[in-house]
């Protein structure tokens, strides 16, 4: 080897060492390693006068067109940018918002809304009745293919317009003058004011929409009438909301700005929360045991149920007693506490907690526990059921779920419980969501996982799913008595009676046991110190109107 060769090697060895050192440092860096004074403190001091809340929306909203954005990632931003005729208050009850007065006719079918004089759009235009008429007819227009349209079917003429049989003019939503909106419903609907809190019923500035049909696609053209306005929208990256100075109740709004990041990884968003880049975060599944009992954790109801559907058209679940046996054999407390974790509540009924009746009592509390764990009863029911059907041995049972870690864990636990309590071997099968969903709709699955998230704050929303031939039924169940109860539960004008029908309907679900509840959904959020006043309603979306942040 000559001398020159050694120089090259020495140089390369040097490079190598530098690299190795870098890698080693990278892997061993500790908390104290980086405690240098950072130069961002000066910047922070300047901004401390402004109250900026940093949230994570997870992903880009489907759409900020209130008629089209029919999912949580669109509803959360929309509910803070816009406001409907009513808004949910701190007790999760709908109260007049953009409307200052709501008159209901004697027969409970005609609603007359008087819109506030001071209700304005962020561009200064007054909010007029025509904005609502325009928005609702836009939602119902079949050409616009709104996924929310079915929510409008309570309005006379709406369903016909949406399925192509009727005309827009026959939909009974009328702007009587600038500030008066008249709506005629097909039947008295006690929860109509609740329904109106759904973003699908938010107004659209009809003047802006006429000029710029795509007004909702970019921040420049976006007009809002809620507590905040859309200041900037960097698609797939971030939305920035600023306080809306035109909002009629702007005095109540404390935040100056809200940043919505779009971080779709549960670990990353948690680490951003840890490093102060986010003010709220969800708890990654692996850290649930560690964090769930912390002081900064908000745990609240989230109107929804995880359940399993029995296919009543397939053996052995055509038999009510066998269905019930399978439902009573499940120890839901164990599933909630040891399998799903994260502070969820086991479901002993179908309607999730958080719906207050006319007497101020919670639906769930009043109707009590309808399905509990009772091994003896389960065994007995199975025996009776098998006798009724003449089974020597139960036909093979397959339990299906859509692929996910939690679903798998729950399914395996159910499999265990059935073996232990009933001595029944159940085989498991998992499918990708879309494949699973198609098969479930087509009644191809025997016993399958399902979930329901409420669209509006009334128990009927869920109970209605199981009427004959409903798109959401997916069990093959059909009962005239149940259909009648639901029809009354939708149209009865006396609220107390209406709730009685709903209580009865739920009891009937438990009696027929076409579905088997597992657990209720909940909202679990980590909130940074100093953050307060974020309203998290059990149904759908959060409200930042009263939110505050102490720096």
């Amino acid at each position, binding site marked *: 080897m*000559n001398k*020159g*060769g050694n120089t*090259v*090697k020495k140089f*390369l*060895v040097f490079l*190598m060492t530098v*690299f*190795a050192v870098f*890698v080693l440092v*990278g892997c*061993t*860096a500790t*908390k104290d*390693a*980086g405690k240098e004074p950072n130069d961002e403190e000066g910047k922070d001091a300047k901004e401390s006068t402004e109250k900026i809340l940093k949230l994570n929306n997870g992903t*880009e909203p*489907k*759409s900020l067109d209130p008629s*089209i954005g029919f*999912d949580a990632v669109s509803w959360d931003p929309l509910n803070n940018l816009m406001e409907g005729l009513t808004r949910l208050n701190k007790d999760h009850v709908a109260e007049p918002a953009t409307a200052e007065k709501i008159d209901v006719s004697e027969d409970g079918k005609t609603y007359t809304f008087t819109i506030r004089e001071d209700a304005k759009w962020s561009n200064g235009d007054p909010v007029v009745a025509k904005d609502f008429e325009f928005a609702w007819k836009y939602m119902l227009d*079949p*050409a*616009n*293919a*709104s*996924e929310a*349209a*079915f929510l409008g079917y309570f309005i006379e003429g709406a*369903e016909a317009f*949406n*399925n192509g049989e009727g005309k827009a003019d026959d939909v009974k939503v009328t702007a009587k003058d600038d500030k008066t909106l008249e709506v005629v419903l097909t039947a008295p609907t006690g929860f109509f004011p609740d329904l109106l809190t759904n973003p699908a019923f938010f107004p659209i500035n009809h003047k802006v929409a006429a000029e710029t049909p*795509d007004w909702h*696609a970019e921040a420049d053209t976006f007009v809002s009438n809620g507590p905040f306005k859309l200041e900037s929208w960097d*698609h*797939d*990256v971030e939305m920035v909301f600023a306080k809306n100075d035109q909002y009629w109740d702007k005095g109540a709004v404390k935040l100056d700005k809200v940043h919505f*990041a779009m*971080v*779709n*990884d549960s670990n*990353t968003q948690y*680490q*951003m929360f*840890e*490093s102060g*880049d986010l003010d709220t975060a969800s708890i990654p599944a692996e850290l649930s045991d560690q964090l769930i009992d912390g002081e900064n954790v908000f745990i609240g109801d989230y109107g929804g149920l995880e359940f399993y559907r029995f296919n009543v058209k397939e053996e052995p679940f055509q038999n009510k007693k066998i269905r019930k046996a399978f439902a009573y054999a499940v120890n839901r407390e164990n599933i909630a506490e040891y399998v799903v974790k994260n502070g969820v509540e086991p479901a002993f009924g179908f309607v999730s907690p958080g719906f207050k009746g006319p007497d101020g009592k919670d639906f769930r509390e009043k109707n009590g526990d309808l399905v509990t764990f009772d091994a003896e009863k389960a065994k007995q029911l199975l025996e009776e059921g098998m006798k009724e059907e003449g089974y020597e041995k139960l036909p093979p049972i397959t339990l299906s779920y859509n692929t996910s870690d939690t679903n798998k864990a729950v399914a395996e636990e159910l499999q265990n419980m059935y073996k232990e309590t009933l001595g029944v071997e159940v085989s498991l099968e998992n499918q*990708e*969501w*879309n*494949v699973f*969903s198609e*098969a479930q709709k087509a009644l191809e699955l025997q016993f399958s996982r399902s979930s*329901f*998230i409420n*669209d509006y704050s009334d128990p009927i*929303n869920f109970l209605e799913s199981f009427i004959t031939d409903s*798109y*959401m039924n997916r069990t093959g169940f059909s009962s005239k008595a149940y259909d009648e109860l639901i029809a009354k539960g939708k149209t009865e004008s006396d609220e107390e009676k209406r709730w009685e029908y709903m209580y009865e309907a739920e009891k009937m679900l438990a009696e027929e046991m076409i579905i088997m509840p597992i657990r209720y959904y909940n909202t679990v959020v980590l909130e940074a110190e100093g953050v307060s006043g974020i309203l998290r309603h059990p149904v759908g979306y959060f409200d930042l109107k009263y939110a505050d942040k102490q720096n």
Partner: protein
Amino acid sequence: MLRYILKRLLIMCITLWIIVTLTFVLMISIPGSPFNSDQSSNETVQANLEKFYNLDEPYYIQYFQYIKSVILFDFGPSIKQPNQTVNDLLGRGFPISFELGLITIIVAVISGIILGVIAALRHNGFVDYLAMGVAVFGISIPNFILATLLIQQLAVNAEWFPVATWSSPKHMVLPVLALATGPMAIIARLTRSTMLEVLTQDYIKMARAKGLSPWKIIFKHALRNALMPVVTIMGTLLAGILTGTFVIEQIFAIPGMGKYFVESINHRDYPVIMGTTVFYSVFLIMMLFLVDIAYGILDPRIKVHQKEGE
């Protein structure tokens, strides 16, 4: 040469047509629809949606619509994000993925070649083992684990770098490191083995005997030949990395186009599935073409259009 390029273009079009057709067949044969959410719905709403996106048309009409959209490179609006066209999504995501990918490739190629050369020169020595140890580490550790490790150590604990998002050079360090380690390791191992082979060749001995400087021998004579296999894998590597990587982009919340490849299929977002597939195919075919051209430049003995020329 011109004839060769024209021929390649023709083959490209045929390849693309086959890809589009296969994608279409696969797309319609997987069960499910873009409108299966866990939200409530009803038949009328579903029918309106299908009509809106022309999914109620017979398959042959849908097929021709896709062929038309490929020719015009206009795939219409995304179903998942109806206010955005597929071209909007690609136009926004691709530059970001490209930027991340390009920096990654540069880092991977430079550090990989250096590591490989060092290992080859110090064959079977401590340095060789160290370098190859780093390479084995790089190949065997999945990039999402490395990414999580980097975030935990360098962003959360040491606070040297931001955890995620994509805005300043400082934000780029961690994702680039996480993404570059794998390709770097592959390049390092390739370079080392070919370099070892080349260094025993007669012309290297000849060059040494002539008393050329070691730098010149390594970089001008040995490395140039040792790089041929590296160039071969560059085509696929470039296409793969420059069009975005789902996992790294998701972990670091980088708004690139990597996620569309995976999510469009999960959501059955047909226009986006078609758009990303066609985009990726065109890109890959172009890259492979460039690699063929690069052979000719690196090794004058290879004539890409030899047969046509005769």
